[in-house]
């Protein structure tokens, strides 16, 4: 998929991946998440928690929400909190919120007891996002994080992402909408040269 | 004729009536408990400030 792609990212910095459709932004994120095996090359994480693979330090926030309509909003969130381990390496000051706090913060606290089937697309998206807040992990891999969100929620999302960076977390995000993240680096992928990493 | 002497097959007769009574009791319990639970849900929602959706309230 990619040739000669190489980059490194330190804590507290966001990497925004841009490029035309179909260039492989999503595949890059899925590779980082460990869902697609590396054909060659390697992925290393320095300073992580022992006994954890790099993937276990990451949250993947993809196109799909992983929300079960049959469960209540709270049950959905609590499951992911129980299921995924927290990973708090040295230099990352993240801490997990309680599920209720996370839902309130994202403006869906009033739906906590309702079945998730009643949620709108944007509300499901926010429920999926709340997963990142209840389990602290330093790396956020976000594929088009703003899709289906209204402007107010987009602002909340941006605040959350900047807050994550301030705590020393990393964000790798693929997006078409400009996001005001600081500090930020850009990675522009092009089809012609099959992925040329360029840090700005 | 003694009405409480049900003959050699008393067990079957009693089982029949017992099963019928328990099924009917189950139906009644379903109806009653369901009503109670729904009323609770309605009250909870009304406390949250959601208005009752009263169908088409044209002529009441």
């Amino acid at each position, binding site marked *: 998929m990619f040739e000669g792609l190489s980059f490194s990212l330190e804590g507290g910095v966001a990497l925004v991946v841009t490029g035309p459709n179909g260039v492989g932004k999503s595949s890059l994120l899925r590779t980082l998440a460990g869902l697609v095996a590396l054909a060659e090359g390697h992925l290393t994480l320095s300073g992580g928690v022992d006994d954890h693979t790099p993937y276990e330090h990451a949250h993947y926030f993809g196109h799909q929400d992983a929300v079960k309509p049959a469960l209540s909003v709270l049950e959905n969130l609590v499951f992911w909190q129980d299921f995924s381990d927290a990973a708090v390496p040295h230099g990352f000051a993240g801490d997990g919120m309680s599920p209720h706090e996370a839902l309130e913060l994202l*403006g*869906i*606290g*009033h*739906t906590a007891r*309702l079945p998730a*089937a*009643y*949620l*709108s697309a*944007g509300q499901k998206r926010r429920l999926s996002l709340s997963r990142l807040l209840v389990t602290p992990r330093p790396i956020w891999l976000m594929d088009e994080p*703003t*899709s*289906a*969100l*209204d*402007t*107010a*929620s*987009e602002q909340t999302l941006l605040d959350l992402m900047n807050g994550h960076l301030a705590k020393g977390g990393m964000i790798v995000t693929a997006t*078409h*909408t400009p996001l005001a993240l600081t500090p930020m680096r850009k990675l522009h992928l092009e089809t012609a040269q099959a992925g040329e990493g360029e840090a700005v | *004729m003694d*009405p409480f*002497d*049900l*003959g*050699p*097959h008393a067990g*079957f*007769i009693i*089982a*029949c*009536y017992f*099963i*019928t009574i328990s*099924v*009917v009791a*189950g*139906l*009644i319990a*379903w*109806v009653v408990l*369901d*009503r109670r639970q*729904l*009323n609770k849900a*309605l009250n909870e*929602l009304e406390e*949250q400030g*959601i*208005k*009752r*959706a*009263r*169908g*088409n*309230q044209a*002529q*009441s």
Partner: protein
Amino acid sequence: MAIWDYANPTRFMRLADRILPWLIGICVIAFAIGLYKSFFMAPEDYQQGDTVRIMFIHVPAAWLAMMCYSVMALSSIGTLVWKHPLADVSAKCAALIGAAFTFISLVTGSLWGKPMWGTYWVWDARLTSVLVLFIMYLGLMALWRTMEDPIKAGKAAAVLTLVGALNLPIIKFSVDWWNTLHQPASVMRLDGPTIHPDMLVPLLVMAFAFSVLFFVLHLRAMQNEVLRRRVRTMRQKAAASARPAAATATTQPAE
């Protein structure tokens, strides 16, 4: 048309509340008389002995099993043709009650069969037809449970109910055919030789009591179903109601 006055769920709820106490009273009295008569007045059958007392619940239950299906079929026509808003509520509620009565008639039938035939179950034409009816009831209930939207589920179930109603005589006929093909009427029929008037009266009273019981349960279940739909729409409203902080936010797609 009187039925149309009760198309409004709120008016239906009020009317049902008014009728129900009377129906419950009649039901209790009818059962008291019916049970008294069937235990103390009815004579033992000269062939079947005391097991004939099973008949007083078995036969009414079997009648009701068929009556419930008729109610469902009528309601289905109401859903599809007249588009009466309460028709699918009625059909849905009748299904569970119908299945329960079918179950009663199957179980009491097989408990009656054990002392009479020496086995709990024979593939007699009548029993088999009732078993098929039972499966159809359960299938309809499963259809209702699986579909999220009650309106869509009601329409789908109405189509299936009507197809079933058309099919039931054919099923009955083919089961009869199949049965006579294999088994030249060696089994004793459940309805016995002839019914003595002393047994007929308690039987009719019990049948009446069971019918009233059906209407009580059906009305109550319909009320519950109306409430359930109310809760559903209110929950949807609850989910959609915006949080106080973002009440003014416009919902524009971010792309």
